[in-house]
């Protein structure tokens, strides 16, 4: 098993400064010290599971920079840099681009200014990139990224605004298994997942609301927010080690464990991870 390397950004400037998804409410502000504590706890669980954490310097005025999952989509040593749909987050692009390039990634731009929000909407399971669209990323952009990288892309329409990124409702565990919340997808999307992912673990609505699907997988360890007991039971039955850590201050902004991380190396669910070709 490869040793995963993960990019995170400390929540120094984190807060609810605007509203760009149904979770956000500027009148329901994050508890800043508590958020810092929750972030550090998550970081600790990931290190304990065997991950190496890289840190991006926080930037004043970019409260959502903590959600590094949206920086880019990593494919081997290539990174397709995000182009955020909302102007409030577009300022993050330059910081992500600079850090990834400095780390040695070949930075590729999103074709034709399509909206594309990185690993928030583009997740490998096996050799296939599953790509969420309609809420934050454009279907046409996904197609062009697929052609650009020569990979199979299966776009999935996200129909519930509470699950505005694919990583809020779908999480690959291995090359042939994933957890998902069926209610976030239309009938076509559910059929595509059923036909292309051999083992699917469905998350019930109440746990999906606790961001059960927004999990970080490190080897056989799966780290989630609290409030997902049924999923954890299913994961244990499937041979995983679930870990829960409170992330409620980030849920206020519409993110949880997965949103706070960008996998740089060692994506277990992606079959290209150990390939030298990409």
């Amino acid at each position, binding site marked *: 098993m490869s040793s995963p390397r993960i990019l995170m950004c400390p929540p120094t400037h984190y807060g609810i400064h605007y509203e760009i998804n149904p979770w956000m409410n500027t009148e329901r502000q994050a508890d800043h010290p508590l958020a810092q504590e929750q972030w550090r706890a998550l970081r600790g669980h990931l290190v304990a599971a065997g991950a190496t954490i890289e840190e991006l310097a926080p930037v004043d005025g970019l409260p959502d920079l903590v959600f590094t999952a949206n920086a880019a989509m990593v494919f081997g040593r290539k990174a397709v840099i995000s182009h955020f749909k909302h102007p409030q987050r577009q300022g993050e692009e330059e910081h992500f681009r600079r850090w990834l390039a400095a780390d040695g990634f070949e930075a590729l731009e999103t074709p034709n200014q399509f909206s594309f929000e990185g690993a928030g909407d583009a997740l490998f399971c096996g050799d296939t990139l599953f790509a969420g669209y*309609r809420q934050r990323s454009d279907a046409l952009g996904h197609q062009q990224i*697929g052609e650009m990288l020569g990979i199979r892309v299966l776009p999935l329409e996200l129909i519930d605004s509470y699950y505005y990124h694919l990583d809020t409702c779908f999480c690959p565990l291995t090359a042939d298994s994933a957890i998902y919340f069926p209610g976030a997808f239309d009938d*076509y999307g559910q059929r595509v997942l059923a*036909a292309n992912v051999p083992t699917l673990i469905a998350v019930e609505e109440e746990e999906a609301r606790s961001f059960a699907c927004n999990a970080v997988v490190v080897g056989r360890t799966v780290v989630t927010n609290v409030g997902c007991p049924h999923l954890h039971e299913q994961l244990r039955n499937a041979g995983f080690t679930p870990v829960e850590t409170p992330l409620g201050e980030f849920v206020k902004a519409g993110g949880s464990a997965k949103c706070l991380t960008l996998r740089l190396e060692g994506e277990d669910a992606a079959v290209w991870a150990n390939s030298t070709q990409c």
Partner: protein
Amino acid sequence: MSNPGLVSSSQKSTFAAVEDVEVRGHIIDSLILPKVLDGITAAGGEFTIKDVAIGHDRSDPSFARIEVRAASEEALQAIIAQIADHGAVAVHGGDARLVEADMDGAFPEGFYSTTNQRTEIRLGGHWIEVGDQEMDCGVIVDDRSITCRCLPMTEVKRGMKVVVGHVGTRVFPLERQEQGHAFGFMNSAVSTEKPKGVVIREIARQLFENRRDAKKSLLVGGPAIVHTGSGPLVCELLRDGYLHKLFAGNALATHDIEQSLFGTSLGVNLNEGTSVDAGHEHHLRSINRIRRAGSIAAAVEAGTLRSGIMYECIKNGVQFHLSGSIRDDGPLPDVVTDALECQRIMRSMVKDVSFCLMVATTLHSVAVGNLLPAVVKVVCVDINPSTVIKLNDRGSFQTVGLVTDVEPFLRALVAEVRKLEQQAGA
């Protein structure tokens, strides 16, 4: 793999708005293609998959080009906006490219060459219907009125804005079903062995309905109409308001006038079928008499000309145009001898024509066929099948041909018209 016209949501349609869209990627496995197609039909539109290419392995993207049809431009745009969310994009994404004509009488290189089919040009994001649809022309755009129309190259003036290339242009091919509306019984262009009675009944119905609906019918006639003794039959149709315009050459008019003045056509007595002494002179004497009068209308006014096709045209207010040719005798003073001027006159006269009957004249039929938009129904009657074939070969594919002798055809046609009148009266 390519298989045009693979799938269609419906075979029947007269949809007002049409746009081609493309969708690519892993559209089969991702169910994007069925989703797009379902989206079109759920929104009340129809589709035809015009082209599809399926990727060979898992990393190969697939591709489909889909024609989307809707009842109105608004409905179409709503459908396209909706399927665009799934990655389907309009093929004709851009406006037409316009280049100013740099000289009189010629288009810029690369100009868009028209067909006779209904055409639209995209300007400022909107599709504009091309006016004066005609084959073998260019399209010029008037910026101020935001209109465009077909224009022959001889008419182009320096500074006119001309459509160049195919981007931002789209053609609406006349569907077989639409062609079949008037002549549904015909499925080949040239009918030599089809039941002529049925065809003639349909032509009569077209003339009858055109008169009833205040639409215009045009006769393009050759001199054989007079030679074969069917002039009086055409006169009946002119008198009764079934023909509103006549295109002919010097020959038809001259033979008709000769018959009226001398009872002969090229010296042959049409009642007896015998040559008349010094009959060959009648032809020139007829022309001379009209030239002395100044015009056919003046000869009718003076009482010199008292019967025949040209007489009925004058008396019944039927517009006629006589095109000259290099072998014309005289010609009659009404004959226009400048070929380009003839095209201009005919072009303006066919604008409101919805039915055209071409009888026994090859080159004139082809010339008029070139000027007509494909939506005008055309029937070409000739003893020689090659006339109809020639028309089709030159793009007037909407022509229905009938290979038969002129006189029996016109006799049967008049009889059918009379039957329709009786039925309508009853």
